[in-house]
């Protein structure tokens, strides 16, 4: 067993961990030793092949194939130097005030979150893409929404030098998305923070943790020798993502005194909907996600977003198989796609557990309210497709594989609620939130509003696990804002804790 000593150890290098690393980096100038321990490797620029299966293996936990305990949802979680910011789409939204009000975390105001989110918007070069760079797939979404009188808005994006490769979720081959791997982590390293990749933390104790370094068959090797490590640190900041932060704390025994640990997980359950146009449209070239529609956010609990995926992901999200399925796949250059994000409620029973080996198990049940939202969203998206001129639509809960434009008036009948059946339709989550929620009450929260784990001075959480309820819009800027807040508290407590 190798031994190492630091003052502060950050576990995970995604949106949360990268932010904390950068914010604590100035402490290195005062002789404080800060390290980031990251499970995944650092992927070299020439390893971004754009090949779906290959990149899924390189960028995602379980190659993107992790399922909920009941098998009804797929969970996409990034792994690597940069975490999920390697594979996110880069839509950069500030959480609305009413959402933070709903969280009702004493001491946490919308003004505070929004001003910190603004800081990261600037740092990450967030801006609107000019209209001439938007492709047909996106513009048709905007057009369809406008025709129907639905509110539609453009997404701000965190790009620099985007060449429109269109494969954001497979990692940008042109390094255009300004994730923590490009912005915060390099800055932290320059200031003296040590980032150790291929390093999985297995146990957190009192001011120490156990980790194992094992190089992945891709990416750059770790700067540390392969083997087991015991690492001493006075401050430990857990940023392993909603699922793994909760699981790591549970497997380290913190669940006994923190009954809310792992609970109140929200996932923004998502569907991909596909329509075929009569003519070729530009779709897979250009940034895939330019607009969102929040028309149904308050009334029906979902958002619609323009999107574009790749052959395998597309094939997997269609309900059905055989010749109709192949026909639709062969129309790839005519496809328009819409992503649905359902706003799920935080429920104590939806939670991260651990199996006998300490690995996470996500026990999450899709509620009837969420299934209702998904049902209504399919009908709304179908209307948008037809308003944009689609010839036919594939709705996962459709009575038939295709709904033709001539049947547009019959959508209510052709997309029945009783076909919205878990296990039959592909439902995924890329926005995992909660499990170590902020609050004051020990029974319903894990940390205070500054990310300090209740009754454990020196132990902090600073990632998506902090969210007490769903973010109700794409969450990474909120995660960075909350992590920034935690870092501020660590800086101010450092004198006392170190």
């Amino acid at each position, binding site marked *: 067993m190798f031994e190492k000593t630091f003052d502060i150890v950050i576990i995970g290098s995604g949106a949360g961990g990268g932010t904390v690393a950068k914010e604590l980096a100035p402490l290195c100038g005062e002789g404080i030793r800060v390290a980031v321990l990251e499970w995944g490797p650092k992927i070299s620029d020439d390893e971004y092949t*754009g*090949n*779906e*299966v290959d990149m899924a*293996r390189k960028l995602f936990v*379980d*190659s993107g*194939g992790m399922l909920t305990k*009941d*098998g*009804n949802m797929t969970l996409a979680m990034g792994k690597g130097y940069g975490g999920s910011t390697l594979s996110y789409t880069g839509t950069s939204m500030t959480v609305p005030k009413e959402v933070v009000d709903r969280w009702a975390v004493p001491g946490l105001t919308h003004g505070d979150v929004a001003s910190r989110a603004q800081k990261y918007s600037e740092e990450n070069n967030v801006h609107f893409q000019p209209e*001439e*760079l*938007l*492709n047909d797939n996106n513009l048709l979404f905007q057009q369809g929404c406008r025709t129907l009188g639905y509110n539609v808005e453009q997404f701000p994006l965190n790009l620099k030098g985007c*060449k*429109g*490769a*269109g*494969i954001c979720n497979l990692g940008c*081959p*042109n390094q255009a998305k300004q994730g923590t791997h490009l912005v915060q982590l390099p800055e932290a390293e320059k200031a003296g923070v040590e980032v150790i990749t291929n390093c999985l933390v297995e146990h957190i104790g009192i001011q120490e943790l156990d980790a194992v370094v094992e190089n992945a068959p891709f990416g750059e090797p770790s700067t540390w020798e392969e083997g087991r490590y015991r690492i001493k640190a006075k401050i430990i900041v857990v940023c392993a993502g909603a699922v793994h932060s909760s699981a790591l704390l549970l497997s380290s025994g913190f669940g006994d005194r923190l009954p809310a640990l792992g609970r109140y997980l929200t996932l923004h359950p998502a569907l991909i909907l596909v329509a075929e146009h009569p003519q070729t449209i*530009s779709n*897979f*070239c*250009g940034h895939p996600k330019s607009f969102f529609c929040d028309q149904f956010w308050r009334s029906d609990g979902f958002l619609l977003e323009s999107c574009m995926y*790749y*052959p*395998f992901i*597309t*094939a*997997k999200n269609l*309900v*059905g*198989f*055989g*010749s109709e*399925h*192949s026909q639709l*796949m*062969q*129309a*790839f*250059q005519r496809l328009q796609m819409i992503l649905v994000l359902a706003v799920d409620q935080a429920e104590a029973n939806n939670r991260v557990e651990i199996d006998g080996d300490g690995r996470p198990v996500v026990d999450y049940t899709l509620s009837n309210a969420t299934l209702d939202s998904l049902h209504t969203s399919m009908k709304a998206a179908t209307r948008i497709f037809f308003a944009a001129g689609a010839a036919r639509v594939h709705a996962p809960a459709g009575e038939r594989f295709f709904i033709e434009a001539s049947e547009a008036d019959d959508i209510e009948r052709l997309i029945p609620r009783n076909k919205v*059946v*878990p*296990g*039959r339709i*592909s439902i995924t989550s890329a926005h995992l939130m909660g499990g170590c929620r902020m609050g004051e009450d020990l029974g319903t929260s894990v940390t205070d509003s500054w990310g300090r784990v209740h009754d454990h001075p020196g132990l902090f959480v600073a990632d998506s696990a902090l969210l007490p309820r769903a973010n109700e819009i794409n969450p990474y800027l909120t995660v960075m804002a909350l992590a920034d807040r935690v870092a501020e508290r660590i800086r101010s407590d450092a004198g006392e804790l170190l």
Partner: protein
Amino acid sequence: MKNFDQDTVKRLETVTVIVVPGYANLDPSSRKQFLEIIDEALGERPESMRRQLALFLKVLNLAPYLRWGRPLGKLEAVDAERALRWFQEAPMAKLRQGFWGLKTLVFMGYYGRREVWPEVGYAPEFGGLDV
């Protein structure tokens, strides 16, 4: 394939031609690629899941005996589709999920190959473009 025996591979291919009819036209090297992708994905999963999948393939292949008196591979195309559709819509969650998982693997093997891009008309320009 390292993770499935020959009989299981045969059952997998029987299901595959129904799920993606284009599989029947693949040359041997493309079929090899298809199987390699699936094999690698299976290799990352626990042994128990591989066993379940192999068992599920057996069930899929034999279940049509109950209605048609023949296994899946011996059915007319329309009946074979009907048989698989029953699993897709099955009242028991485990059967629906099993079929969904299997279908996902098949799509991964087929559409996860770069060689399929021209067939579907997917032609991304990673290095730059004019939209």
